[in-house]
């Protein structure tokens, strides 16, 4: 394998590893912030709080589907 190809693979791997850390970090922080906010306001976590998180997760899933469609389109283009 050429050096450029190896560098490309390593670069891709690095992106994924960074993604793993940031995805868990971002969503973990989001949950902690929600719990802190509810505690600071001296209230329980309610349905609206959960709905906001569900909406964010739905947006992330839409992003996944868009990435899948883009990858499919790219595959068809290559063929």
């Amino acid at each position, binding site marked *: 394998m050429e050096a450029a190809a190896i560098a490309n693979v390593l670069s891709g791997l690095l992106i994924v590893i960074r*993604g*793993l850390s940031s995805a868990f970090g971002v969503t973990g922080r989001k949950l902690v912030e929600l719990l802190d906010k509810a505690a600071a306001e001296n209230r*329980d976590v309610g349905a609206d709080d959960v709905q906001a998180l569900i909406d964010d997760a739905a947006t992330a899933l839409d992003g*996944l589907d868009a990435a899948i469609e883009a990858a499919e389109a790219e595959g068809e283009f290559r063929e």
Partner: protein
Amino acid sequence: MRIVFALITALFASSCATIFGVDPARLDSANKSLAAATVRIEALALISTDLVSAGVITPSQGRAISTNLRTALDAVQQAKDAIAASGDPTQADTALEIAERSIDITLRLLQSFAPKQTALFEREKSWKPLQSQTYFPAF
């Protein structure tokens, strides 16, 4: 007379809470468990998006993951709606089981499709922001 009336009112309210099973602490706990499951679904969706975009997993593998995560999110959504409508926190139990199963399947799929890249999951499993014993065992 007022004191007697207040006592009767308090007793009535307490009885209603018992009869209808409305327990604010359990309601709070159920919502926190649903919130924890939801952020996990979002994290897996973000990770999967990166894996698909980087070409590590194929589009069809991505679709399998997406389907599982949507099953989990649908279960959480339905449970949240049911709890909001009825005030019954036990509505979360089945949904959390479904969500947990779907998340588990998703993790296994990811580990199967991209074993090297998802080796970090073992380390990420130590990510447990919810330590309170009042929470449902969502994961």
